[in-house]
């Protein structure tokens, strides 16, 4: 295999920041090459330089042996570089074919629709990207939209595909389908740069992996030669604990009891179809399931954001089914919501205003309706220090923080109120290994302090590593509840599709 893309000692310095400081990379024809690194390690800066969005400070990029200097993405595209951004750049009102050919339409001004559809169909067949060229983007799932982005690259004759955090928004099935597409591309001899911070995905899909840390490339290794632990250590620069060590749980009294709870979502679809479940003090109950099976509606219903249609929610011995979110907060329910931008934070507020989001109306943060900034700021400073939020500036707007630090702010706010129970929905989504470790430690610490933790997660590893018991949800119902220490991936995977094991089917 020959080198298709070479990056030699590439540097990009911004005033005060060395975003890239000596990056070396070789991408061979027909290989899937992963770039692995934590958020802020310089992966995006590197990609932007390869794609012509940023000009390197020094160093060289070679394409097929020739040095290249791209001044714009247009030039990079002309040279055969295709990029699929994490956030898609598609026009929802247009069809697949129209989006693909946009800017380079067959027939020019005299747009030839039939030719566009034919061309896109031919491309999709060639690369195994099954999609209907006449479908509207707005009607497609995220996974299919991503295919359109890949088609766009090939329509522009890409010889190399860069996938920037491609699985961040995908469901597990869509991820599997994407991996099949990547394997097709590899079989076609097209090199793929796969940017990610998820170890298991890198392990599964890539041939070689280059690890970045603090703007530098640490090493490039054959993926098969490295264990996930090796990669994690390289990424973070120290020994990382991938699977949290924890004592055996000492479950106490029940803290949450759900009795045949039914919940409709905002669109009035019945998403939770009768769930009976119990969470005890001092245990982590994992709620596993494929996205869209009602787990997040259930979490919202326990927190009071959705009103159950039927059933009872008992918390700490009291019926809270009809209480407002504020009353539940007062009783000791803390909630880390699934979507931290939509629910967990007011991004335009600074950290002080965000940390008092639940307690602003209480002393010492306000008295007689007047906000008191000083106590709130002191409290925020304490939380920032205890949870290692960076940058440690209380007056920063929440929007200016990285995803991991935003999540730390939410977690800090929720657990520092000394709750009785924490609902953690996707608490580590989009975070890097170091941040995940910190948040997992916090969840175990809460458990050890005798609080109940309901962990709702789509990440099988997270569920397996933390849960004392695992409840598997499918189509709004609990399929089974199994002990965490003996559970296996295969067992949960099977339950997630809704099928119980044979013996139980026979007995029931």
């Amino acid at each position: 295999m020959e080198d298709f893309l070479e990056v030699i000692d590439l540097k990009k310095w911004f005033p005060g920041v060395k975003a890239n400081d000596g990056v070396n990379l070789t991408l061979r024809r027909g290989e899937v090459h992963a770039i692995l690194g934590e958020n802020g390690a310089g992966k995006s800066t590197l990609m932007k330089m390869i794609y012509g969005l940023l000009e390197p400070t020094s160093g060289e990029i070679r394409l097929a042996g020739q040095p290249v200097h791209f001044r714009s993405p247009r030039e990079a595209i002309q040279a055969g570089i295709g990029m699929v951004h994490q956030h898609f750049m598609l026009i929802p009102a247009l069809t697949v074919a129209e989006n693909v050919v946009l800017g380079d339409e067959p027939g020019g001004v005299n747009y030839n629709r039939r030719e566009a559809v034919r061309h896109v169909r031919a491309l999709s067949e060639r690369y195994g990207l099954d999609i209907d060229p006449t479908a509207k983007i707005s009607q497609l799932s995220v996974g299919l939209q991503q295919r359109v982005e890949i088609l766009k690259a090939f329509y522009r004759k890409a010889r190399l595909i860069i996938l920037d955090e491609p699985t961040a928004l995908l469901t597990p099935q869509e991820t599997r389908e994407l991996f099949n597409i990547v394997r097709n591309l590899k079989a076609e001899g097209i090199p793929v740069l796969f940017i990610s911070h998820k170890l298991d995905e890198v392990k599964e899909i890539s041939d070689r992996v280059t690890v970045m840390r603090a703007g530098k490339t640490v090493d490039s290794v054959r993926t098969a030669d490295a264990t996930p632990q090796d990669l994690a250590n390289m990424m973070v620069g120290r020994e990382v604990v991938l699977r949290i060590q924890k004592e055996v749980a000492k479950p106490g009294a029940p803290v949450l009891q759900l009795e045949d709870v039914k919940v409709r979502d905002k669109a009035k679809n019945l998403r939770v179809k009768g769930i009976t479940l119990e969470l005890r003090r001092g245990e982590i109950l994992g709620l596993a399931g494929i996205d869209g099976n009602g787990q997040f509606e259930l979490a919202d219903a326990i927190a009071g954001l959705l009103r159950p249609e039927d059933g009872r929610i008992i918390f700490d011995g009291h019926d809270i089914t009809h209480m407002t979110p504020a009353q539940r907060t007062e009783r000791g329910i803390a909630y880390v919501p699934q979507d931290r931008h939509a629910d967990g934070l007011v991004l335009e507020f600074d950290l002080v205003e965000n940390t008092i989001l639940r307690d602003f109306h209480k002393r010492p943060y306000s008295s007689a309706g007047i906000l008191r900034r000083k106590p709130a700021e002191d409290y925020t400073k304490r939380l920032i220090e205890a949870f290692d939020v960076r940058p440690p500036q209380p007056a920063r707007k929440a929007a200016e923080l990285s995803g991991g630090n935003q999540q730390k702010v939410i977690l800090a706010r929720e657990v520092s109120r000394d709750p009785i129970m924490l609902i953690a929905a996707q608490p580590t989504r989009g975070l890097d290994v170091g941040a995940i470790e910190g948040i997992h430690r916090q969840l175990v610490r809460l458990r050890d302090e005798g609080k109940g933790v309901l962990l709702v997660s789509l990440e099988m590893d997270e569920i397996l590593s933390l849960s004392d018991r695992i409840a598997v949800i499918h189509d709004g119902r609990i399929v089974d509840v199994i002990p965490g220490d003996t559970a296996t991936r295969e067992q949960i995977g099977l339950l997630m599709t809704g099928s119980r094991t044979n013996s139980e089917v026979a007995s029931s």
Partner: protein
Amino acid sequence: MKALRSTFLGPIVATLLAIVIGGILVSAMGYNPFSVYGSLISGAFGNIPSLGNTITASIPLVLCGLGIAIAFQSGLFNIGADGQYWVAAAASVWVGYHFTSLPGWLHIIFCLVVGMLVGAIWGGIIPGLTKAYVGSSEVITTMMLSYIGILLARYLIEGGPMQEPGSNPQSPEIVQNTQLPYFNQTLMQSQLSLVAVAITILAAVVAWFLLYKTTIGYQLRAVGFNQRAARYAGMRVTLYTVIALCLSGLFAGLAGSVQMLGVDHRLMDGFSSNYGYTAIVVSLLARNNPLGVLLAGLFFGALTTGGQNMQIISNVPAALTDVLQGLIIFFVACERIVPQIIQWYRRRRSLRSGVAAS
């Protein structure tokens, strides 16, 4: 300090761009832009009476603008400040020529309070409740109620119960006691009452304090920025929607009240003043910051009075000030372009230096 600069840089650049393009327009029409702007500035600030006129003209704009800013900060769009202004004006005038036995200061406060309450009901209770419970858009309801309010005020003095017997469609004058004092002859010429000025400044400070220093304002802004997060935090989103629209109408009502007590002294035909609409621009230009509204209101007041002088001296139609307003709205609305232009320029420069280095 840096945050403050970035907040106000956009509006200032937008205003400057509008002035430059307005100047180009004027020269295209065959006038000397410097003398035209000169006459505008001297008409607005040139001497004590014109400065007084400017301040008088800015008071209703500031007060309406404060109401609109509060709505904007709460994520709501109050388009109907004009109607709230006029129903409140009518109510204040009615109170102003009744209850003649009340002592002066008490009568003034009574007029203001009634005006504010009527404005709050017109702008807040009706659109607020329909939005909260039926989900109707406040953009439509405030606007429709605005027409109803203006026409109601007009009916009251054109054959309605408030018409003064006689030929003119106008109400009786409010009693001397309730007219805000002018203190001296010069101020009287400009119809500028220092009490009205004091009320306006106080209102701006109160609005600022309310928004940034109280739990009510904290919740209003949280609801405005992110309704879902506000709900998550346990705030009562519908209640604060109603409160926001009430406060918005309250300030617009105060504008009507102060204008009646301080300037007009009676309800009469002036229904095309459009304070409520100009105030939207005032609020946008001030980035919905109450203290910024003071400055932006003064600027638009200056445009109004300066425009009249400009027409007299330079023969340029006063409508040019409307063009300037339009241009300012345009540039404020697309002020996101400004950072993009700066970024583009920096990129070009860094690319050039990059090429030169290699």
